[in-house]
């Protein structure tokens, strides 16, 4: 509606069109502007490819690091499940009490499974492995205690909750000593934490660089189109209308950069996959390098698009405003 002239119809209100049609026209004009921006990137392929390349590679680095940390976590998750608690029972515990303890413990929700190694079995095993053999038969009594190996459930296998379980187990009357070898696990977790933080910092810095690069590219686009923007402002274009093509340019940079990053990450993973297979075959472990999942991929693309949009938004808001007809 005209601000100055009451009743002067303007634009879309002109031909009595329905809400639906107006919505359609809105989308059609957006699609047209989006395709227009894409066409403009296409017409200057060298410059566009360079910008897309910078963006793609800037996203590739943190994405690859992320995949590596993820794989390391997966690997260590496999080790964690093996984490066991060894309970050494008091010497004077009677076999019946041992059985009772096992029954009691097997009801705990934190515990996945229990293995009882009786004194006799332990001695037998020790005889075989230690090589003392006959010397041990001369002992008056069996010096070894009963041992129960406790495997926590998956949910309680992390170092902190496993040590909480250990404390609880130690309070049992029959238990003399409990042991959980978690120090190395805690260290590993510490290192993984550092790695994740480093990935985060690197990603943040690179993302910031991407926003600045896109912002600068869009700034150049804007100053190249200075005359056009002036004319558009003279014939009554709103800022939003002028912004839109530049925002779409940022969007396309982001999307294409994200796709490039996806290719680059896939290529890198394919590259290192061979050597990882070789190493894991040496360890006879069935480790498989896992790449980006569908949701990771979507997140990466969304991130990239958002960076592109953010860069262009900042630039557009600063620089389109400066261009005013004088």
């Amino acid at each position, binding site marked *: 509606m*005209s*601000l*100055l*002239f009451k009743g*002067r119809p*303007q*634009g*879309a209100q*002109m*031909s009595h*069109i329905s809400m639906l049609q107006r919505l359609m*026209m*809105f989308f059609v*004009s957006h699609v047209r502007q989006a395709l227009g921006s894409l066409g403009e990137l296409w017409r200057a392929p060298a410059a566009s490819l360079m910008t897309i390349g910078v963006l793609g590679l800037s996203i590739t680095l943190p994405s690859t690091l992320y995949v590596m940390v993820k794989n390391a976590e997966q690997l260590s998750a496999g080790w964690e499940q093996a984490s066991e608690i060894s309970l050494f029972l008091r010497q004077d515990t009677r076999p019946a009490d041992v059985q009772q303890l096992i029954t009691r413990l097997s009801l705990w929700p934190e515990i996945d499974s229990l293995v009882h190694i009786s004194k006799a079995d332990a001695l037998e095993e020790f005889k075989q492995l230690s090589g003392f053999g006959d010397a041990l038969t001369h002992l008056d009594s069996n010096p070894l205690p009963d041992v129960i190996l406790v495997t926590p459930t998956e949910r309680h296998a992390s170092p902190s909750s496993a040590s909480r379980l250990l404390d609880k187990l130690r309070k049992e009357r029959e238990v003399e000593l409990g042991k959980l070898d978690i120090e190395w696990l805690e260290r590993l977790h510490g290192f993984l934490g550092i790695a994740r933080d480093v990935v985060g910092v690197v990603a943040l810095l690179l993302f910031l660089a991407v926003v600045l690069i896109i912002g600068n590219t869009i700034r150049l686009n804007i100053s190249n189109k200075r*005359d*056009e923007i*002036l*004319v*558009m*402002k*003279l*014939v*009554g*274009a*709103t*800022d939003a*209308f002028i912004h839109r093509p530049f925002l779409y340019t940022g969007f396309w940079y982001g999307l294409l950069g994200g796709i490039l990053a996806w290719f680059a990450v896939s290529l890198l993973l394919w590259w290192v996959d061979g050597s990882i297979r070789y190493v894991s075959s040496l360890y006879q472990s069935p480790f498989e390098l896992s790449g980006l999942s569908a949701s990771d991929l979507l997140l990466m693309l969304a991130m990239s698009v958002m960076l592109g949009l953010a860069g262009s938004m900042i630039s557009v808001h600063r620089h389109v405003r400066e261009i*005013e*007809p*004088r």
Partner: protein
Amino acid sequence: MIKFENVSKTYSGGQQALRQVNFHIEPGEMAFLTGHSGAGKSTLLKLISIMERPTVGKVLINGHDLNTIHRRQIAYIRRDIGMIFQSHQLLMDRTVFDNVALPLVIDGYSRKEINKRVSAALEMVGLRDKVRNLPIMLSGGEQQRVGIARAVVNKPPLLLADEPTGNLDPKLSMEIIRLFEEFNQAGVSVFIATHDLGLIARMKYRTLTLRQGQMIDDGLSEDWQTDPLQEDSL
């Protein structure tokens, strides 16, 4: 239609472009604004299209005080004012059609409506056959007519022209002015700034005269008959 109330404009450099300007142009009127270059003609037009804001005083269009118009609303104000420039202000890398269609595209008209109106506007200025040309392939007079078609394509109630005949020979200038007369007869208010006194002399339209930022003649006073044009050209 256009009303100036004690308008002064001082640029940030301290240069005073307009001093205490008062005048009123009625709806449907056609008027000329004249004066030497540097007298403040362009500044006066810029105040109407809100390219500049007055330092003191009020500019009103159709009774609305432009001082109350927010920066974000300026775009909508300009859709009500058809503007024509000496330098044409055409997009040189777009066809004549795209140039004329620009205000309609901005205003969100449908494709069908745009085709219809652009054809009509180009018909009016006699450039129907140049639709697909680039402005660069046209003569100066033709480029100016493209600018005029663009200014009238969304049928604004007010038409402003800043030196529309600046680079044209007298015959072409007259053709352009005839075009403005046609629009005026269709009810559009037309306000033309020009220093082409010869052109104005052949017309019987109201003429406002600026000298060094002051309105020395608003074209209504009785003593205007003693010919301010000659006085001005001295």
